[in-house]
């Protein structure tokens, strides 16, 4: 399919001769083993038998080495297949006549372009994210960075036991916050965080990464009819819908892929500041209400309360 006219490097005649040489080699090798198998039969005297066997054996070995030599010679003539094709072996796909019916080759090229772009952008993003590392826990970072100089990036596969430990340590850290851990769908943990008598938060985890959070009122139902945590429906109250938005922003802010436990702890520390959701006036305008909502924003660093529009 991919020889001859399209691949000048291949000598067709030498190719067919080489195939013939391979066949010759195989048959001569077969003869060697036949000869060995037959042994020293059909001769009157012992001496005659030995002589005949050795001669036959020698002759067949000679033909083997002769055929092998021929094959080696021919293989040099055959030349190498189209190694200079820019896309290497995938280039051969473009020569396949079937390609008119299947868009395989053009799809392959497209995918290659995309993966190139993706790699480029991922590189840029990782550069930016590294500059913007977790500011608030900068001191803790220094300490744990020394303890574990290079944590493996495969934090997605942490054992569930380790996740449990991290969560229960955080649970003990904040007395006014209770965390209930459950694993209704295999290994991924789901947390129900109850903060005082103010609010409840459903946290969906993937290993030690927080995937999704929903904030609801203390009096609101957080379970579906069949008794599972309801991770889809939002709060009936505007104030908790707003806090849910801010919590999602916080997830994006607290990012430190090498130390997911620090991220979870920072997020929970931030969340804890909502214990005064209804009691803290805005640090900028000094008021409690703005457009009917209390200060729903908590600064990521200072944890001070602000209205959504009064922050920064």
């Amino acid at each position, binding site marked *: 399919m991919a020889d001859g006219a399209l691949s000048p490097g291949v000598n067709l005649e030498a190719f067919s001769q080489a195939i013939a040489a391979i066949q010759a080699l195989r048959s001569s090798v077969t003869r060697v083993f036949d000869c060995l198998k037959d042994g020293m039969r059909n001769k009157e005297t012992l001496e005659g038998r030995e002589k005949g066997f050795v001669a036959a054996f020698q002759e067949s070995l000679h033909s083997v080495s002769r055929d092998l030599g021929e094959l080696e010679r021919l293989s040099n003539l055959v030349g190498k297949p189209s190694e200079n094709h820019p896309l290497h072996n995938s280039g051969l796909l473009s020569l396949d006549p079937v390609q008119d019916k299947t868009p395989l080759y053009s799809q392959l090229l497209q995918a290659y372009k995309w993966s190139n772009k993706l790699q480029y952008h991922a590189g840029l993003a990782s550069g930016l994210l590294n500059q913007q590392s977790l500011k608030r826990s900068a001191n803790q970072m220094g300490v744990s960075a020394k303890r574990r100089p290079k944590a493996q990036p495969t934090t997605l596969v942490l054992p569930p036991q380790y996740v449990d430990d991290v969560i229960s340590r955080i649970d003990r850290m904040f007395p006014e916050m209770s965390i209930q851990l459950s694993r209704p769908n295999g290994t991924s943990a789901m947390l129900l965080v109850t903060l005082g008598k103010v609010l409840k938060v459903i946290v969906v985890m993937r290993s030690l990464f927080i995937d999704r959070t929903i904030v609801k009122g203390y009096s609101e139902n957080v379970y579906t009819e069949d008794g599972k945590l309801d991770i889809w429906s939002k709060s009936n*109250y505007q104030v908790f819908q707003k806090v849910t938005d801010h919590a999602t922003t916080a997830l994006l802010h607290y990012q430190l892929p090498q130390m997911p436990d620090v991220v979870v702890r920072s997020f929970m520390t931030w969340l804890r500041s909502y214990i005064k959701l209804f009691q803290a006036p805005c640090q900028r305008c000094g008021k409690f209400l703005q457009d*009917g*909502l209390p200060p729903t924003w908590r600064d990521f660093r200072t944890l001070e309360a602000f209205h959504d529009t009064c922050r920064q």
Partner: protein
Amino acid sequence: VGTVPVAEGKSVQQTVELLARRLEALGAEKQGTFGVDCETYHTAATLGTQGQTGKLMYVMHNSEYPLSCFALFENGPCLVADANFDTLMVKLKGFFQNAKANKIESRGTRYQYCDFLVKLGTVTMGPSARGISVEVEYCPCVIANDCWNLLMEFMQSFMGSHTPGIPSVFGSKHDSTYSPGDTMVQYMELFNKIRKQQQVPVAGIR
């Protein structure tokens, strides 16, 4: 629940309209109507010891809780019962006498503004309008004391200087959860105040 005094030269009706206009200017939306009523029962003389005045019991209904009936004693416990408690009271005629003339109620419009619920009502006793009740509830919060400052600020925005002080039930509640009974206690206190004053004041709840 609090009350707003009716300005001189204006009727209860006009004051209610003024408050409603201010609420709507804030962006509050009308959400139907509400009603709270209160009937007074005297313990029958036969039960009371000689020389002691019979205790008063108030039986109240709130349209927010159509399946419940609230029985309250002044300074006493608040009982929450099913709505058919009324039939029971009829059967207990011998022990509790209904003071029909003392029936007092507040009816009006429900407003919603963000997570706030405001009930603006006209308090009537018999045929005459006696005052105005204003109930303000901040639904997301279950601890009344936590959101008092927030409520104050909200009430000031439409009641101005007539914003009521902190209701007495808040003092005894500390950190416990707010319940419908607490609202009824405030209505009871408000109704008693209006009864005694004879004149037209206006009232406010949590």
